[in-house]
């Protein structure tokens, strides 16, 4: 295990791979700071261009990108009360309040350092979970992995949408769409409607671009985002902010622990971790009067939690093939593009690569926080770019990226159709993360199902772990529905 840990670092330490990691961090900083873009869209934009790269370098870049969006998104939160991504909304409460008091620099410095510590904590937990989970994963066979796929899909479906039924429907539609193309066990092409382009199914990257990227760009244009004006950071506040973090280290670590746990649960993600971190910061404080009016703990707690959540999300994604969120589903997509199967392979044959991912996460969090610390003012400038300048540029990138899938006009036509699907899903409350998870896992799940049936007949349903996972799935769905029903109200705000 230690050898693999070291080998993972040595594999990453090649100049080209480090450069790719650095590039991923820079792209992650840019997409994190522009409201409405975020890690998922960033993934969708870069994935098509990485297909011909060395897998280790490409994966380092993807990790660099996703690790840092929850650091850079703080800038717009604090300065403009605009969340860069969904994982930073809670930070606005006290972060922007501090900016209004002229303490923006202090808030940002504290947020960046807390993010770095939280991110490193998440990476360490990820590394430590590998030897712990390894015996368990090695016991799993195709029946267990099939059930884990269904568990992951059901949890993301129920937790990630406003209505569990719509989330489950979205996941079901993703599963259905994954069946387009050649069937895995018989020689027949499904749902190709006589179009040769569809023989190989729908390219993964088109799902990402069409369902996420282009609808978000269209939404930005409709909302005329980003809207940001002048800002002041203040001078000399960085050291004060960092001192606050060092003083509140127990809070940082507790929130990082909570964030890692939240990230581990499929369907929760950084947005929930951010709020849980804020809630814990308030609850654990002796004097709560400052919260909501610019208490720095209201920045430190949520920022530590949301960065740590990324490490947590990677645990089920890498070890069990169950992506915890939309961005992890796309990361899983990236792994599959390089023929890397999550689960057993990632802790045996590709164990050094798994540790490369850990090192990438660790380094990206530190490097990203340092860059943010020095370049916050310059990065904030991105948010002042009018959307009418940004939109055509992003459209060009998306369309070019889509064409790389099969280099066929079918890619562009499918992109348009999927954009209509993605945009309407968003407007009518169907969970796109659930749809993507269903699509990504659909192919794998079907293969596992048929292997299980061929090896064990129907007796695979009686395997102890299978029964355990089924019970866990039923329990989690019921608990989620009950929990969500407690928070029910008619939609009359935001989201349509």
């Amino acid at each position, binding site marked *: 295990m230690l050898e693999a840990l070291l080998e993972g670092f040595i594999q990453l330490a090649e100049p080209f791979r480090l450069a790719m990691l650095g590039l991923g961090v820079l792209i992650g900083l840019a997409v994190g700071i522009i409201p409405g873009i975020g890690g998922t869209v960033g993934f969708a934009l870069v994935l098509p261009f990485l297909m011909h790269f060395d897998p280790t370098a490409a994966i380092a870049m993807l990790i660099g990108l996703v690790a840092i969006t929850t650091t850079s998104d703080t800038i717009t939160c604090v300065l403009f009360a605009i969340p860069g991504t969904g994982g930073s909304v809670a930070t606005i409460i006290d972060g922007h309040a501090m900016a209004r008091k002229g303490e923006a620099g202090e808030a940002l410095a504290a947020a960046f350092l807390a993010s770095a510590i939280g991110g490193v904590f998440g990476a360490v937990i990820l590394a430590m979970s590998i030897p712990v989970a390894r015996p368990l994963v090695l016991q799993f066979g195709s029946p267990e992995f099939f059930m884990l796929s269904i568990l992951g899909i059901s949890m993301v479906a129920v937790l990630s949408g406003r209505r569990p039924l719509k989330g489950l429907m979205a996941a*079901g539609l993703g599963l259905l769409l994954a069946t387009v193309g050649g069937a895995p066990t018989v020689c027949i092409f499904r749902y190709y409607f006589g179009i040769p382009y569809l023989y190989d199914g729908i390219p993964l990257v088109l799902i990402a671009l069409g369902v996420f990227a282009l609808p978000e760009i269209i939404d930005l244009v409709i909302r005329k985002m980003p809207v940001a004006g002048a800002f002041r950071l203040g001078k000399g506040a960085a050291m004060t902010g960092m001192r606050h973090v060092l003083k509140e280290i127990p809070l940082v670590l507790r929130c990082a622990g909570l964030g890692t746990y939240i990230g581990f649960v499929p369907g929760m993600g950084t947005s929930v971790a951010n709020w849980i971190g804020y809630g814990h910061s308030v609850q654990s404080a002796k004097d709560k009067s400052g919260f909501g009016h610019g208490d720095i703990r209201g920045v430190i707690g949520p920022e530590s939690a949301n960065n740590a959540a990324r490490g947590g999300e990677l645990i089920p994604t890498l070890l069990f093939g169950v992506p915890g969120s939309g961005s992890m589903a796309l990361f899983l997509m990236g792994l599959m593009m390089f023929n890397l199967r999550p689960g057993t392979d990632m802790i045996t044959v590709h164990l050094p690569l798994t540790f490369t991912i850990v090192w990438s996460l660790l380094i990206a969090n530190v490097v990203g926080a340092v860059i943010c610390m020095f370049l916050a003012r310059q990065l904030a400038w991105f948010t002042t770019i009018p959307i009418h300048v940004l939109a055509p540029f992003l459209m060009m990138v998306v369309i070019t990226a889509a064409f790389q899938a099969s280099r066929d006009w079918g890619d562009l036509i499918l992109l348009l159709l999927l954009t209509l699907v993605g945009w309407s899903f968003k407007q009518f409350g169907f969970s796109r993360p659930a749809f993507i998870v269903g699509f990504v896992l659909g192919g794998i799940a079907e293969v596992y199902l048929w292997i299980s049936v061929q090896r064990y007949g129907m007796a695979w349903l009686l395997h102890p772990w299978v029964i355990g996972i089924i019970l866990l799935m039923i329990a989690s769905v019921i608990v989620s529905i009950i929990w969500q029903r407690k928070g029910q109200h008619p939609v009359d705000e935001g989201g*349509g």
Partner: protein
Amino acid sequence: MKLVPSIIYTAVIVLLTALAVFYAKDWPFQARAFPWLAGITTATLGLLLVVTDIRRLAMGHRLEVTSGQQADIESGYDMAAWSTYKKFARVFGWILVLYAGIWLVGLRVAVVAFFIAYLRLEGRLRWFLIVPLTALMVLFLVYFDQLLAVHWPRGIMGQWLGIKWL
């Protein structure tokens, strides 16, 4: 979200899913099992949703009931407003125009022309801003072309005229 548009949208999904299930009826069992599992489950859930929402509508409610939690990115505007559809159609129209340009003259030329037209007509920028921004865009295209060896869709004019880069 208002109930009526939501019901209609869900009903359309149920119909399409049911058609997909029906389409698979003549396939061998091993080919149709998974699509049927996914399709029948989805259609059933959709019917349940439609029935629940119609009952709410009959009781006089006009809005959906939700948990208020959304892990997806929020829209921030009213989907039911006609102006939203018009804005969407406008942006989508621009994408279709870009597609028409790509079909005609290939992506490289189409994207530059689209960029200029969009900045001028939608962004209402002045030429002294459009020119340097377009130059930046062209540099980016060159980067894509030279460094990433990206493939570009060719236009029919390039094929008719025998111009390789068009």
